[in-house]
């Protein structure tokens, strides 16, 4: 995953609250076992929304309502948004698993106070472009600054483009082994299926 690079683009406003992962990625397409090419399924049961998105020129920024991405853990929702070209989403709040999935796929999921977001939505609807600075956690639009937040660790990861898994192994392999040795002694019933180290 490449690290985040600041960019400027238009935004699409999706005001509805509680847009769940079934709306973003209908369950019947979950039979697909790949990650690529899922953009065609995003919002499939919301043709009016897709039309409006297309008319807006398919911008890579979404300004969404509260609790965006609530519901299922399906990472397909994030892969499909990524596939349709979404790179950043701002909302008053997010479904937590969805937000973690965004970070793992290089999508900025920024929390923005409802009032700030409403002002930004008005600017976006008026056709102003948004500039996203993740390190500074600020969107700039028509010379005004709109602050947002991304949890520290997610921001670090997005900016550096780290692979979480290999990074854990490289930096914390010893810590994990030490934890395991200690747990074997204190909670041996969790280790009965494994031969002694």
């Amino acid at each position: 995953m490449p690290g985040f690079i600041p960019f400027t683009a238009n935004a699409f406003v999706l005001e509805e609250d509680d847009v769940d992962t079934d709306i973003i990625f209908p369950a019947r397409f979950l039979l697909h076992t790949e990650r690529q090419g899922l953009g065609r399924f995003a919002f499939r049961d919301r043709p009016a929304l897709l039309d409006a998105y297309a008319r807006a020129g398919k911008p890579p920024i979404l300004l969404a309502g509260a609790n965006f991405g609530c519901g299922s853990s399906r990472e397909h929702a994030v892969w499909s948004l990524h596939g349709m070209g979404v790179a950043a989403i701002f909302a008053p709040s997010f479904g937590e698993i969805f937000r973690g999935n965004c970070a793992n796929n290089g999508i900025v999921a920024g929390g923005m106070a409802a009032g700030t977001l409403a002002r930004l939505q008005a600017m976006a609807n008026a056709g102003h472009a948004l500039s996203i600075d993740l390190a500074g956690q600020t969107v700039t639009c028509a010379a005004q600054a709109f602050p947002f937040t991304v949890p520290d660790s997610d921001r670090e990861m997005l900016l550096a483009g780290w692979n979480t898994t290999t990074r854990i192994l490289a930096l914390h392999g010893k810590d994990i082994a030490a934890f395991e040795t200690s747990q074997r002694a204190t909670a041996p019933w969790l280790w009965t299926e494994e031969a002694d180290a």
Partner: protein
Amino acid sequence: MTSHASPRTLYDRLWGAHTVVRGDAGKDLIYIDRHLLHEVSTPQSFELLRDNGLVVRRPATQLAVPDHAVPTAERGGTIRGELARKQVALLEANCAEFGIEYLALEGQQQGIVHVISPEQGFTMPGISLVCGDSHTATHGAFGALAFGIGASECGTVMATQTLWQARNRNLRVHYAGTLQPHVTTKDMILALIGKIGAGGGIGHAMEFSGEAVASASMEARMTLCNMGIEAGSRVALVAPDDTTFTWLEGRPRAPQGAMWEKAVMYWRTLRSDDDAVFDRIVEMDAGAIAPQVTFGTSPDQVMPVDGLVPAGPARALEYMGVEAGRPLVGLGVDYAFIGSCTNSRIEDLRAAAQVIRGRRIAQGVTAMVVPGSTATKQQAEAEGLDRLFEQAGFAWHHAGCSLCVAMNGDVVPEGKRSISTSNRNFEGRQGAGARTHLASPAMVAAAAIAGHIVDVRKEFL
């Protein structure tokens, strides 16, 4: 250094016991003791392992089972849908390649992940458990730190046995008093979601307490914890007690003999201190809770069955074909579904069976029972429940997720109204354009028989 003097919540205790590294960017590296896998959320996780040349660190801590995509109307022979067949075959092949135990579709141990894991004793108090599925909080009913994760995270867990996770705040939900007859923990959790909202628990781990929780069975506690995510909480907990230990003892994967004694000694320490500080407390009066039914397209759009539809988002009311100011009672239903990881355990089936005993479903209603596991199905058959359901006109299915997520061929047609024991009434959840009302097993059975939504307390005493 940990301070033994400061009071802690159950969640804090579990978190502390699984912290490998305390992070300085808001997340801790948490050790994961157990991982459940199913066919839908893991194909890409195994890709992640392959792409990076990684192996599974502790295969014995992983357990895989097909549940979401599997047909439930029939079993045996090949799966008809090509994509589903390939998806299930891929899970089996991936498990073989990486040394993970796979519970075959045809086997005795198959079923919905959140039903079979406790049944097998794979779920235990005090462990951390994850699954690429948002209803993983179900296992919190045992006092386990259990939460749903994404597919990338499933790969991270397999390779490292850890995850970077943000520690939640503590929310206590206290249910004082006892439930009225025909009111269940399903109604308790729906009432809570209605009160705090679908995003009301975001960032919080919930712990349930009070008389109505302490007196609840393990099945009922699992129903309660299962839907924490519908209020935005990834973690939902009940402190383990004798009810928990009695339920678990002797299960195939639970500790045995001296190990069991040692484990129980530890498990008894898993509770919130009396003076533990919660960031937030919600008080519920269990005795005042009526059977709940959802009227909209989010689980927080819920009401007592004897009430009137409140003013709600126009889009939701229109989608559902309901009107503000009118009752739900009397609204005709086309489908009745008893199943899902929320309400497909033996007690749920018994509760529904008790309501239907001797009666038949109304004309024009399609009704089905999908047990949560093959073992549950067999138990129900041993008790004669299958015959009872079939005589009443219900279809009796094999175990799986089925109409909860409608990706296995079971589907509610567009515009049709369904009353369902599952956990999500989202737009399109049971099929594109399908209208879903969530309720308890007794309420669903009662509606199937009446042909419309009824108050089970009034019609079936």
